[in-house]
């Protein structure tokens, strides 16, 4: 079905600093940060002891004891966000045509928390090589294969169309929406409940990022630890969260009078084929993804009002990304505001791509660009307008959101108003 255009008609965000889209936007628009010393476990043995944790009570969000027991925290976040997105869209579960509704869940590391906890038990604290099945919980299989997340969301919203998890490391949250977008465009479904979720704040994740010094050791000042594009940045702050969306074909959304946040107008992903964790400084592959996404949206670089950056706060990422923006947007890279919300909500691996697309849609909704918090020391290698410290009110009709991840994945999504005149 050529020409089918896909819009966001519902969303829900569960991010550090406050559950719910409204709280999320308050945090961003006020430039507050939600990073803090780790409370989930004793962080003393770790190099990095800072994280962006959510104060989340699954029971308060209507999950039953059985659901809580069988789901990893990331699955719980996904189900709550998916239900919230559906409610926000004005579509009732009963009104959905199950066969024409699908689910895509992005997640980089699946049930990491559950696996870490359960391994500790079945191995008796790492003592047993032949781990003891008698101590395994019956739902451990759901942690082994994280497609269980897609199953839980499909059950929660009553979807019986194509459902899957998309797992491309830290671009999962963009790629999941790219995947869902294509299913609506090709006509396999009419509605997708799509988003991403990760809850990686566990000892094994902290340890593996410690080992490559990817996370910041700035634990003496956790509120200011995430410093994308700042000259003193020294690693990212691990986060957690989930954002979900209801995606619909634009015509049918219009017919039912739905509120349209934005069109997912262009998407592309490319790989650097270089290194599992390293980036070439020239940003050529991210630039290619951006160019392709703009082409698909039929927008010139000059039409982009705001760039929602990956901006993880590692030395190499922020340099790589700055180069990619210059390469793809040309002179407009210097003219358009660029910011990283990871400065406020941390880096929730695969989830953050969806959370950042939510921030991009909200920037359009409120005509306000969220800031890069903690950006106080300029870095000569990062010389764009990163919207330091304070949000900026401005006309915002088209946004570019990008991600970069382990495995070499580079992804770009362009959001625009569907009624725009094509370039």
């Amino acid at each position: 079905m050529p020409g089918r255009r896909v819009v966001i008609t519902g969303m829900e965000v569960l991010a550090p600093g406050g559950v719910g889209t409204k709280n999320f936007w308050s945090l961003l628009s006020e430039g507050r940060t939600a990073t803090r010393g780790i409370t989930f476990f004793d962080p003393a043995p770790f190099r990095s002891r800072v994280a962006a944790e959510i104060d989340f009570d699954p029971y308060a969000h209507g999950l039953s004891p059985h659901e809580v027991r069988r789901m990893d925290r990331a699955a719980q976040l996904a189900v709550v966000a998916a239900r919230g997105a559906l409610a926000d869209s004005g579509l009732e579960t009963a009104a959905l045509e199950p066969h024409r509704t699908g689910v895509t869940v992005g997640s980089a590391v699946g049930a990491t928390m559950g696996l870490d906890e359960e391994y500790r038990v079945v191995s008796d604290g790492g003592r047993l090589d032949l781990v003891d099945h008698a101590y395994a919980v019956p739902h451990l299989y759901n942690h082994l294969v994280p497609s269980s997340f897609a199953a839980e969301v499909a059950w929660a919203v009553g979807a019986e169309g194509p459902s899957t998890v998309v797992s491309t490391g830290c671009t999962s949250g963009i790629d999941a929406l790219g995947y869902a977008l294509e299913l609506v465009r090709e006509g396999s479904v009419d509605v997708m409940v799509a988003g991403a979720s990760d809850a990686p704040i566990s000892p094994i994740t902290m340890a593996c990022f410690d080992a490559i010094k990817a996370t910041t050791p700035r634990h003496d000042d956790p509120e200011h630890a995430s410093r994308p594009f700042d000259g003193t940045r020294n690693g990212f702050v691990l986060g957690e969260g989930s954002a979900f969306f209801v995606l619909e074909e634009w015509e049918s959304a219009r017919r039912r009078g739905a509120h349209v946040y934005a069109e997912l107008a262009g998407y592309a992903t490319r790989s650097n084929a270089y290194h599992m964790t390293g980036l070439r400084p020239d940003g050529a592959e991210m630039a290619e993804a951006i160019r392709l996404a703009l082409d698909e949206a039929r927008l010139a670089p000059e039409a982009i009002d705001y760039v929602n950056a990956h901006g993880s706060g590692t030395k190499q990422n922020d340099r790589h990304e700055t180069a990619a923006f210059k390469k793809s947007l040309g002179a407009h890279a210097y003219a358009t505001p660029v910011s990283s919300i990871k400065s406020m909500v941390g880096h929730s691996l695969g989830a953050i791509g969806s959370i950042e697309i939510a921030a991009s849609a909200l920037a359009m909704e409120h005509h306000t660009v969220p800031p890069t918090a903690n950006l106080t020391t300029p870095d000569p290698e990062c010389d764009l307008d990163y919207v330091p410290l304070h949000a900026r009110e401005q006309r915002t009709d088209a946004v570019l959101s990008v991600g970069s991840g382990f495995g070499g994945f580079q992804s770009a999504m362009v959001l625009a108003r569907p009624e725009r005149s094509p370039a």
Partner: protein
Amino acid sequence: MSAPAVITGIGVAAPNGLGLRDYWAATLGGKSGIARLTHFDPSGYPAQLAGEVPGFVAEDHLPSRLIPQTDRMTRMALAAADWALADAGITPAELPSFDMGVVTASSSGGFEFGQGELRKLWSQGSQFVSAYQSFAWFYAVNSGQISIRNGMKGPSGVVVSDQAGGLDALAQARRQIRRGTPLIVTGAVDASLCPWGWVAQLSGGRMSTSAEAARAYLPFDREARGYVPGEGGAILIMEDAEAARARGARVHGRILGYGATFDPRPGSGRPPALLRAARTALADAGVDAADIDVVFADAAGEPAADRAEAEALTALFGIRGVPVTAPKTMTGRLYSGAAPLDVTAALLALRDQVIPPTVHVEPCPEYGLDLVLAQPRPAKLRTALVLARGHGGFNSALVVCGPE
């Protein structure tokens, strides 16, 4: 639909044969790779049989620097990708890097690697965890490593839908070809035959605890008692048909149609959705049920799931209306690797005009299936349907045909 997708290369790592030739010879010969586990001592566990890939020595196939940073499933996937590219006659360095992508499926990632690092974490301390843990275990690792090894910068991806994901990856590869990328490396290789993976798989409660290799995994049999897991899978080279023709490539077969559905929530009383996935795939392929010459079944090996699949097949084809086979009775269930291996078997069946057998099974007559048993069955074959289901309710179906 424009830009039909063809398969031009296949690389196999299967429990009953390493490499395409060995796998197919074993499969036609009814040789099973299911045996007592050797990767670790299974004596203390209720299930002790698995399909292990024989004779895979990673150092023979990969540079030594890749060994410490990869799980077994990634090593097998990298080798299988090399074999698939060679089979397709492709030298990646000679092609534009953005014209090649990698879309794989995964189920459990590099679980054995993760087990080793979790053990270090909890027994020695966090500072002993490997720098490679940040990527060696995660679900995206095979796509990432294959793209790096072969310089592939085009669109890549990873899907996780348990066993159905093996077909979902092929469908996503076909989408990328339709969107303009001429070549996608696709398929899947999975492995989690380590104690930690074993315990996690056991927790599902669907594994066979039989100690007898020939009686443990008996799909569609009255004695069905669960499945035997395995490791391995297949990596396929998918190309735009026109691009493959232009370079004079030998074509194994074509991807004609695909469908995916999800089962209703348990207890909803609504019908299961495998039949709808198959019908969607047939419609996408533009063929009727009568055009399907053979079905490669999902073959869960649990009575309720076998019955559901048999009901879907008889609804679509009638009682004993089409030959059905499950060569995975010789490999065990390979999670996301299973369906790409079944697609491989289907393409070779179409080539050789012979249906590989389902071994050890005495079919339950109530199911009404024409199962191809014990011996390969010569047949006139033009089109095959491959089915795959994943735990929780994932259903996928793919229709393939020969090169013409």
